[in-house]
């Protein structure tokens, strides 16, 4: 039993180590990469700002970088761009009423298919 306790303590240590180390990594550079990969390069075909080399993308990336350094939040920066370029620029659609079905889709389709599948399942233990 003692062995098991030591083992458990070990596991807990390892997990906390990982959770803690995850948090300190969030810096400006990382935020910039994350944010610009979530925004569409408007003049390219299905390419994100991060990957794009076009003039517009470079300008927008510059603005994003400045705004991150000014201390603006991701939400503020996205809002700034949506006001000028529309929701088209967001690769991750807004979580609002008109996109409700989109965001609920995984859950709804899962529940629906589970519902269909459940009729096949035998509940009585033979």
């Amino acid at each position, binding site marked *: 039993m003692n062995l098991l306790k030591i083992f458990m303590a070990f596991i807990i240590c390892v997990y906390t180590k*990982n959770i803690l180390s995850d948090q300190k990594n969030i810096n400006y550079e990382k935020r910039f990469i994350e944010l610009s990969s979530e925004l569409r390069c408007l003049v390219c075909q299905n390419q994100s700002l991060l990957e794009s080399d076009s003039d517009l993308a470079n300008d927008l990336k510059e603005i994003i970088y400045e705004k991150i350094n000014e201390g603006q939040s991701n939400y503020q920066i996205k809002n700034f761009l949506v006001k000028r370029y529309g929701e088209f620029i967001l690769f991750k*659609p807004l979580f609002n009423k008109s996109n409700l079905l989109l965001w609920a*889709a*995984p859950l709804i389709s*899962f529940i629906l298919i589970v519902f269909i*599948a459940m009729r*096949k399942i*035998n509940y009585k233990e033979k």
Partner: protein
Amino acid sequence: MLAEFGFIFLVFAFVLSVIHLIVSTKVCFINFSEINFYILRKINFSICLFLILSFLFLIISYVLSDFSVLNIYNNSHTNKPILYKISGTWGNHEGSLLMWLAFLGVYGFFLTLFTRNNNKKFTSKVFFTSNIVNIGFIGFTIFTSNPFLRISPIPDEGNGLNPVLQDPGLAFHPPLLYLGYVGLTIPFAYSVAALLEGKIDRRWANEIRPWILISWIFLTLGITLGSFWAYYELGWGGWWFWDPVENVSLLPWLLLTALLHSNRVTEKRDNLKSWTILLSIIAFSLTLLGTFIVRSGLLTSVHAFASDPARGIYILSFLFLITAASLILYVIKYDKIENDEKLNILSKEGGLLLNNVFLCASTVTILLGTLWPLFVEVMTGKDISVGAPYFNLVFLPIIMPAIFVSGIIININWKRNTVEHLLKKLYKAIIILVFLVTIILFLLDGPIIFFAGIILSTWLLISIVNDFYEKIRIKKSISGVKLGKAISIPFSTYGMYLAHLGLAVFILGVAISDSKKVYFEGVMKEQEIVKVDRFNIQLKKIIEKKEKNWISETGAFNVVGFKENIKMFAERRLYLDTGMPSTEAAIFRNFFSHLYIVMGQEQPLNSGQRIVRIYYNPFIILIWSGAFLMAFGGLISICDKKRNR
């Protein structure tokens, strides 16, 4: 003359399939006669022959550079290497459609060949259905996209192929993908035939299994090759972009995977019959939907090479008619084919059902996400985007439990299991998993997705080994194994092991390369050195070159950090005729990892500075290797001799 013959063959094929339709309608629905059945077989063979010949004639015309044919004039050039002359055949809409037809011919040929001893009444219904698909596609080619149209006066030189398409990866990607798509016609035909007959049994499931496997293998290979092409040709450093065109190839793959598993239940346990039927119908429709979306240019995407809305209407109508008809048939015959037999959740069939739920839910989600911008546009007139961040967020939580469950399913028995029995079989595996994962957690560091990936692939690996061990273990002994028992394990099981091993390798590749990648973007001058991860990378100089139809700049990089110092060359081309830039990434492979450098444009202008992107993608090769292993597992599964007859 070749082009005329090609077209005449096409017309012959069309006329023959109309005759086939009349005869098969009589055979299937009015009165069956053996003679008419043999006529159907002969017509089948002739249609196949004409379709394949027609395609060969187009290829030959391409090789001979016959620019009096409009299609060849538009897409070929005399100074192209022979490989691209041939691949130019399917690098455009008309030609790729003719390739689709030729593949219908190839599949039709083997279908007719292999069914000579099967139930004749049933087989004629299969022929009836597959022939309707033939008619639709031949008609589409003849009436909207004839590849054999002539022009006069005859031009001396062709326009050439889109430079992005001049690549060996893209030469083979479409044929493989199409072999996968077209292969689905046969499970579809079998399903509709079964609905018409109103009867499905284990034999039926056994017969369609190789066909499902074949198209699954080709689709896997096609998607893998496409992904690899995008990785090194687009220069974006990634291997999957959730582009609409990529999504529509993934959708049938996911459903086909689900079908592969549910068909197994039908084959072994005579259950989930209507489910198997429904999956094959929808998987087939999804291939048509994919073609429709790519061909009509409906959704903006990387692959908008060949698109035309008028053709879109034809395909959409065809898709609508054929799917609606089969789904209505499904509703009518549902009660006849479905039985009330239940299954235990704690059994292989129960687990496979659960896995099907996950796979189907992920398919529905991706389908909805892909088409969502269209829905919003119809409803509100607004333009919105749904891209990679959305799909990653919703797809992973659905697919990860499915992968975890598959580890259990591999180890569980058919029919019935008790919890104790299952635990007894799996407890060693679970202990090993916890032990290994703890060590990995202790040694490595990374985001949650990294550990999820590691855990899943380790789990899959352990559960495969565990099941194998249990199969060769001497019963009633504690740890004795008899390797001789390994011979009696069927090929299909080894195929299954290998395919899931491939999945494990794939997940490992995704997890490591995605969370451990190093990315650098910045401007560099000549001689400048940047430090990326453990590499010191210097932009030595920029070499400018001028060719006949492009100008190029090549960045020569010196990389210090591997065992030896290496040189890498990242090119950036500007094609003069189209004004399109194209990037040739410099890729250096070190074991399973890639160092990937892309040189962008001058920024700001005339400053001598270039935008440079450097990616270090550790273990990224595992992604494609894993996918190839999966396909290879499928191949071994097909070779199982115990199947059929």
